[in-house]
């Protein structure tokens, strides 16, 4: 059928797709170009190409510290958010209970809070409670926004879950815990994994919540902002590129892990015969 479509129609679809892709990825490309200069200032077109700023950035202890803080926060957020969101999603999509409709709306509302306002209000609360701002308070702040997102992502998987699977396992002699471990968890795993990726990446790239709540600790997005406001060096686009590529890399690694697990499962199935 497709081959019968007029040639110009196919060409138009390709042109449109290319335009959208360029629109989305050109800024990222500019970031990469801006990092590959040997001069001190940000000038287009680039006159002197070089990787001097890449070397400086990777050698900097300060940058290492930033990575550690950002990773630590994102890791804690992921673990806590997925745990809360999994059970939240089961309540959201699996069980029918009085008040579920209201719960569904309330739990998603924080996604739409303006994050800078949310950050400020959390800062005021932490102060009122006498807490010192640090990466731990940032974890809490991120959770307020990321748990709802994560709940929504996992809920999508839970909606397609047939409750009869749990009943069947229970009927076949499994305890409630065995049902959860052998059936519920593995069947929901793809959703849980995407929820975890979402949580990690949203925390990794978050700026407005971190700005108010990290205190003396600094995350990569905060550092980038501070440096752009005052003291720009081509180290900024270097770090920006590394951070972006790192996030993209994580997505690919995550995908690769899923593919690998599937292959291994298929292989072990075959060897059992």
């Amino acid at each position, binding site marked *: 059928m497709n081959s019968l479509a007029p040639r110009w129609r196919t060409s138009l679809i390709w042109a449109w797709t290319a335009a959208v892709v360029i629109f989305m990825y050109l800024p990222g490309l500019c970031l990469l170009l801006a990092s590959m200069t040997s001069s001190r200032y940000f000038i287009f077109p680039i006159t002197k190409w070089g990787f001097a700023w890449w070397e400086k950035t990777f050698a900097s202890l300060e940058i290492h510290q930033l990575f550690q803080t950002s990773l630590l926060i994102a890791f804690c957020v992921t673990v806590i958010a997925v745990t809360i969101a999994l059970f939240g999603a089961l309540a959201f999509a699996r069980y029918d209970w009085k008040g579920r409709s209201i719960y569904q709306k309330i739990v998603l509302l924080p996604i739409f809070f303006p994050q800078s306002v949310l950050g400020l209000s959390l800062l005021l609360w932490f102060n009122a409670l006498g807490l010192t701002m640090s990466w731990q308070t940032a974890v809490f702040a991120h959770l307020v926004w990321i748990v709802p997102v994560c709940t929504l992502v996992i809920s999508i998987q839970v909606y397609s879950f047939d409750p*009869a699977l749990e*009943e069947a396992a229970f*009927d076949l*002699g499994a305890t409630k815990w065995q049902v959860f471990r052998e059936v519920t968890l593995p*069947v929901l795993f793809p959703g849980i994994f995407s929820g975890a990726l979402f949580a990690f990446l949203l925390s990794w790239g978050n700026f407005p919540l971190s700005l108010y709540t990290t205190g003396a600790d600094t995350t990569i997005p905060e550092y980038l902002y501070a440096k752009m406001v005052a003291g720009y060096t081509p180290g900024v686009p270097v770090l920006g590129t590394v951070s972006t590529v790192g996030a993209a890399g994580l997505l690919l690694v995550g995908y690769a892990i899923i593919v690998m697990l599937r292959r291994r499962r298929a292989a072990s199935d*075959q060897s059992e015969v």
Partner: protein
Amino acid sequence: MNSRSPILQLRKLTKTFGSFTAVKEINLDITEGEFFTIVGPSGSGKTTLLRMLTGMESATSGDILLRGARINDLPANKRPTCMVFQSLALFPHRTVGQNIEFSLKIKNVAPDVRKARALQLMAQLRLPQDYYGKSVTKCSGGERQRVALARALAYDPDILFFDEPLSAIDYKLRKTLEKELKDIHRETGKTFIYITHSLEEAMVMSDRIGVMRAGQLVQVGSPQQIYSAPETKFVSEFIGDVNVMAVTAKGSSIVHAAEFGVDIASPAVPAGFTAGHLVVRPESLRFIENRSGAENCLEGRLYNEYVLGSRIQYQVRVHDHVFIVEKLRQQAFAGQRDDNVLIGWDAKDSILVTD
């Protein structure tokens, strides 16, 4: 083992949801090794009844006795019974083998013993042995049915329950699987309790059938009894196309059909029967040349005909009442649409039922 002893006894079993009574005071004895089918339209409470028997729903009142012991409070995972679900509920992340072995894995049976048992069940259910490592999501509808049955049999239950597992299967395959299931019942000798909304399906497989209506068992009997001696209009109509006439008692074997203004020769009118319905099956009605051709006769107009493969049905309208006459294809009726025809039947071919 005494094959006559009841394995499952229900005593005034009742389930209410708020003010709604889904299952009402059901009394029933099921014999060891029996294939018992509960049949009823949707909303008749058959699924709720089954869920109480499996332990997935608690009974509001009454008793469920398994070999004489009350099991009301035993959860589903502690009951020696197992169910084949309507959706089959095969574990999508597991292979055919892993699905079948699930209950054995839960019981910590050694892997090689589990596998031997699974392969044995697969052979019994005519699943190819190399399906052991196949993902269940890649199996066809009929294969999935067999995997679900094998998984339930691996649990070695005293009673197997079936919740309309064949309802989503196309007609031809369903007919094959119905017969296979009856063969499996024979081979295993286990007690099967099956629910369906299709009495046709129930007839093919069952030793006994219980018809449910609005939470109550309205008639229990062999397929023969249900077919030839329905006690109520509901049961008679549930079997398929029937001709039903409202009648009142007039003599020892005469009833009056006010709708047609005629007296009708009927089977012996039971004591206490004042008003009810007379049921005549389509195959018991026939076209006749003149009024002496049958004990009872009505004049109507041939309205339409339906070819059902080996049989043909004719719709005959008597006033506004529609009658269905069924004949074998070889004995097709030569009448044309809108012809005036005489239809007749004998008293012995009709059944008197109450509402």
